């Protein structure tokens, strides 16, 4: 019995973890308890040093003094203020008007606004609720297919998970021991491509099933010129002008003067220049009343400016290397506050509520991490990481075999677990193996982030579906504009609507596997003020992630003669994905 226990501690511990978690007690404490129970058992069996738990305060201290995680409350707070600022409503209405006349136009508007909101707020619930309340009734009114409309809204809301600045990517970066800036740069292009795939699906539907996505009738377009024209031409001219300016900056400034600047730096500056021109034109037009621009054009410019300005403030400064992600989060939160004041939406109640939600979210996220660290202290102590590594590195097919198996595993787990649980429990186990196989960890992280996005869309537990259900009409209702009785949106329609988008998600996973270049661009453009960049550009060369805080994870210092002590030291070092590998180098 004892011999069996000693030989199989890691698998037993993992099995017990599954049982503990499924009981439904808070994940953070179930994880920690698992670590404690098996830690005590290990000490009893002589597998682990009695001093094992002495390392706990230092491990929690490592979580406390973690600058990366500081970005979590900042971005959460920013999102909560922003979702109530009315920005999403304005965007959906105006962009819906703009695209509505095209077949499938409302769906394009939802995807486009979903992507814009994703790049500013990063809160799935808020995007889904806004779109469910504003766009869904219009889509239903003009005869969109219910499943298609529901699926498009739910999926576009989840773009917040993959397009920076998302919490997912921050936590992924932390768990993989990589910089958040790299993670953002790596996820940016896949995020845009994914939004493009959603739009392509709409395009496909508009050819194959045109009745699912009818164009809005002319009377539904309320934003018109006094003479009855749409004002599209004026907007087109303005758009062309802005694009020309942006391209001109790229070719006439960057190519001759700064050819060394990276793609994302150029993109940020060029797009900003183009936007500034459009904004200037709209302001001049409004102030002078010259009527150079149509109402539609002016309106589009004014609703697009706040999100674009925030994107610049947060992502722009991070990509330019001016701000760290944490500072970007704080600046974004401040920007959101300013905007909410400007729109007269900020009051004490909203402020208190946002701080309250932020504090609670931060607490439960960090406590899962603390629980995971108590768990891993014991799990690494009983050589659990070697067990996992052994299981996974024995897979046939090398890198590709590993990636396929891991992605199937995560896809299946995403039915049951939400993102935080996946990130804190599964990622630390997988990362060292991925690294050993020579897989770039940013690529790996982005890949898993795209995959985990499905956890929001899987019926019946997907959060995006849940939030859409809460705002979609559940009973028969009378449409305000047409006065017709409308059938409710059934839960089955929401579930079935999500299915094509889950398939698109899988296609995207395969694309990221097949074309790692779309993630690897993060390597060309290292922001200047990030010292960790230097290390990251050389793959599989490990240096401690945070050299500033000595003793942060080294609770048992000095050379250890006895193998038990050595084991504890290993657990300490092995905590971070990268360091685990270093250990193995030492031992082999």
């Amino acid at each position, binding site marked *: 019995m004892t011999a069996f226990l000693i030989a199989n501690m890691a698998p037993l511990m993992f099995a017990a973890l599954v049982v503990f978690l499924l009981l*439904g007690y808070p994940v953070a404490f*179930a994880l920690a308890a698992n670590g404690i129970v098996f830690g005590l058992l290990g000490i009893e069996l002589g597998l682990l040093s009695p001093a094992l738990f002495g390392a706990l305060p230092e491990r929690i201290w490592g979580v406390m003094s973690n600058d990366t995680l*500081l970005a979590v409350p900042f971005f959460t707070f920013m999102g909560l203020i922003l979702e109530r600022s009315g920005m999403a409503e304005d965007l959906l209405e105006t962009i819906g008007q703009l695209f509505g006349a095209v077949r499938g136009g409302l769906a394009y508007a939802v995807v486009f606004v979903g992507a814009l909101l994703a790049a500013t707020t990063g809160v799935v619930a808020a995007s889904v609720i806004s779109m469910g309340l504003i766009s869904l009734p219009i889509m239903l009114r003009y005869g969109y297919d219910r499943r298609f409309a529901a699926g498009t809204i739910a999926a576009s809301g989840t773009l917040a998970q993959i397009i920076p600045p998302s919490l997912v990517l921050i936590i992924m970066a932390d768990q993989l021991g990589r910089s958040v800036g790299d993670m953002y740069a790596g996820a940016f292009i896949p995020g845009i491509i994914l939004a493009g795939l959603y739009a392509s699906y709409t395009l496909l539907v508009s050819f194959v099933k045109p009745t699912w996505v009818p164009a809005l009738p002319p009377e539904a377009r309320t934003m018109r010129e006094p003479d009855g024209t749409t004002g599209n031409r004026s907007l087109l001219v303005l758009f062309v002008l802005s694009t020309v300016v942006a391209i001109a900056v790229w070719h006439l400034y960057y190519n001759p003067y700064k050819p060394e600047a990276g793609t994302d730096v150029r993109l940020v500056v060029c797009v900003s220049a183009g936007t500034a021109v459009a904004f200037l034109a709209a302001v001049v037009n409004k102030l002078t009343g010259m009527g150079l621009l149509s109402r539609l054009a002016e309106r589009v410019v004014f609703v697009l400016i706040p999100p674009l300005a925030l994107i610049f403030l947060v992502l722009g400064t991070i990509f330019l290397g001016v701000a760290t992600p944490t500072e970007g989060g704080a600046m974004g939160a401040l920007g959101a506050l300013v905007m909410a004041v400007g729109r007269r939406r900020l009051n004490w109640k909203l*402020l208190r509520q946002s701080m309250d939600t932020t504090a609670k979210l931060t*607490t439960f996220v960090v406590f899962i991490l603390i629980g995971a660290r108590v768990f891993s202290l014991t799990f690494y102590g009983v050589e659990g990481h070697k067990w996992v590594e052994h299981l996974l590195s024995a897979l046939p097919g090398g890198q590709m075999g590993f990636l396929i198996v891991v992605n199937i595993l995560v896809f299946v787990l995403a039915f049951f677990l939400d993102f935080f649980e996946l990130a804190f429990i599964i990622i630390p186990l997988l990362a060292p193996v991925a690294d050993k196989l020579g897989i770039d960890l940013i690529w790996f992280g982005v890949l898993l982030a795209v995959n985990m996005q499905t956890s929001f869309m899987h019926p019946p537990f997907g959060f995006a579906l849940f939030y859409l259900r809460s705002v979609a009409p559940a009973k028969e209702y009378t449409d305000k504009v047409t006065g017709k009785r409308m059938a409710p949106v059934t839960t089955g329609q929401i579930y079935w609507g999500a299915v094509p988008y889950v398939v698109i998600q899988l296609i995207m996973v395969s694309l990221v596997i097949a074309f790692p270049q779309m993630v690897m661009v993060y390597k060309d453009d290292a922001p200047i003020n990030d010292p960790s960049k230097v290390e990251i550009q050389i793959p599989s060369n490990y240096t401690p992630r945070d050299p500033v805080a000595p003793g942060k994870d080294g609770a048992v210092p000095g050379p250890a003669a006895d193998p038990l002590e050595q084991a504890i030291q290993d657990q300490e070092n092995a905590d971070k994905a990268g360091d685990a590998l270093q250990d193995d180098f030492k031992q082999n």
Partner: protein
Amino acid sequence: MKALLALSRAIDTLNDRIGRAVYWLVLVAVLISAGNAIVRKAFDMSSNAYLEIQWYLFSAVFLLCAGYTLLKNEHIRIDVIAGRFSRRTQTWIDVLGTIFFLLPLVALILYESVPWFLRTWQSQEVSPSAGGLILWPAKILLPIGFSLLGLQGLSELIKRIAFLQGLIPDPGEKQVAKTAEEELAEEILRARGDKA
């Protein structure tokens, strides 16, 4: 049981007050971090003290709100299977979970962290980075936070046992009147109602 329920109410009030006071630190941290970033870029000056105070505040938020978050039942659970159990079964799981999962964790962390804090306090140790802050105010957060968490665990235990005895209504229901999502939905509807 009456005395215990009074104790539970006192603990709930304590953690509720602390939670409501501590969440203001979120705003303070945002302002300090944004201010520091602006000053750093505009005047090219910065101090490690400002960087360190940010994570002191961050630590204060999640450690001091641990009990508050438990009170509000916001520590996430995996309810794929547990969601199908009856309320009584779920309450039993909470009772046993508190006794065997939560309270031992709290006891262990307190046992390890109090001497750990005292060492820093006695040595008046200062952060090794230039201009760094004194360390004990951050380290004391760990025993305080886990004490609050332990107290709240005790209160939840009392409430759940009382519920199983039929003395009080179900304490497991979420205590917030409205979630942030419901508020958002209402506000959008109100704004649109005005327009229509």
